[in-house]
């Protein structure tokens, strides 16, 4: 938690949840809200390092990633963004909103069978977020939302690399069920604010803003 001493340090706020949980929409609404209040805010999305992401995309297309190499290329993308995009801004007092943070790696790579301590070690150079929202949604609801916006699941999103099922939808539900189970444990352990993501967008956003305003007040901002 930020204290008055950190007044000039930016706050780090993260959103977590399954694909299709609506977390990016909520983060975008929060971003606009904070900008309107005149705050210096920057948004950083998972898997978006200009140096690393093109490589991740081609590796995914080749479908050759093992659970270890999957974890490592995502950690590389994060490391690049953390050291060159996130940390410099936090030091300069700019608030950073992260669309997915360390929890994503813990949940996804954990669901791929990697040891939790190993995943945590990969990311232990990064500081913990001041506030993390977990948008909780049943995998069935997430699946329906994704299929409304595009024709099919991506290979790794459906966990097809794990051979849980032949059919992409069945595989998606099983894999994302595992991810959700990991998230539930992580959310509890790391004090995430759990938001019921099946509720109306407006109600979710109200809760998000209330929590963020509380954090800003606490930090004397």
């Amino acid at each position: 938690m930020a204290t008055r001493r950190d007044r000039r340090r930016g706050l780090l706020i993260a959103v977590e949840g399954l694909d299709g949980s609506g977390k990016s929409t909520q983060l975008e609404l929060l971003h606009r809200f904070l900008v309107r209040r005149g705050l210096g805010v920057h948004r950083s999305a998972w898997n978006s390092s200009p140096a690393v992401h093109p490589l991740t995309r081609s590796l995914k297309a080749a479908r050759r990633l093992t659970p270890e190499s999957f974890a490592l290329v995502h950690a590389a993308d994060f490391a690049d963004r953390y050291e060159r995009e996130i940390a410099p801004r936090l030091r300069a007092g700019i608030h950073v909103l992260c669309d997915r943070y360390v929890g994503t790696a813990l949940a996804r790579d954990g669901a791929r069978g990697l040891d939790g301590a190993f995943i945590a070690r990969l990311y232990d150079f990064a500081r913990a977020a001041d506030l993390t929202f977990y948008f909780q949604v049943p995998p069935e609801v997430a699946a329906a939302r994704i299929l409304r916006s595009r024709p099919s699941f991506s290979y790794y999103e459906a966990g097809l690399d794990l051979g849980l099922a032949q059919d992409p939808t069945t595989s998606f539900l099983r894999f994302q069920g595992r991810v959700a189970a990991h998230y539930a444990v992580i959310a509890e352990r790391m004090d995430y604010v759990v938001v019921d993501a099946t509720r109306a967008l407006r109600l979710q956003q109200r809760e998000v803003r209330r929590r963020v305003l509380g954090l800003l007040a606490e930090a004397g901002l």
Partner: protein
Amino acid sequence: MSAAGRLFAVEGPDGVGRTTLVRALAEQLAAAGHAVTTVRLRGSPGLRGPLRSLQRRADIAERALFLLYAADLADVYAHEIAPALAEGRVVLADRYVMTPVVRAEARGIDPAWACDVLAFLPAPQRTLVLQAEAAVRLRRMLMRRRFLTPRESGLGATYRRDPQAMLVRYQHLMDELFARRVDGQAAVGLDASVGPRDLLSAARRALSADLPAPPKAGVPPGGLREGVKA
């Protein structure tokens, strides 16, 4: 134990003659009847090209570059090393975990962290650490290639204006960090300022105790298998 494969790593800084040694060693071991597979760092099909171009760029975090090398090793291990070991082959790795860790350390990353990240990779039976002082290696690099690369000159490790001076300083540092890891047991130092033939016989001597008995002389059953070429 002859059913289980053997993994040997050859490590060392730029221009020390790793690749030449690995090639010659592989040929000799194959001729002696061992089934040999050679693999290399930056050897995975999906990461080889991108890593080579990222190496030349300054706009990537050093930690990210290290993690991509780790991903490359994970790929090479899963798709080449592990299957070859399962077949009982002798695997020669042209750089394995030591070089990425030393490079990361030279760029200010905690080496304990780097080692933990790579801990999922099994340790080799033996690591040969080739050592030759920076001046010798610089000469070799300049004889072999038209241009030096920014990273050989310590991009990310030092920020001097004169690339040549930078390179020497950085490569001295590499010498020291590799030397620190030579213990004469798991990691054996080999003087690589000698000619390639002497180095090859020194490497053979260093590995002789670890090799399984060759099945029989002549053409090996599995033969010499080369890893993916750059």
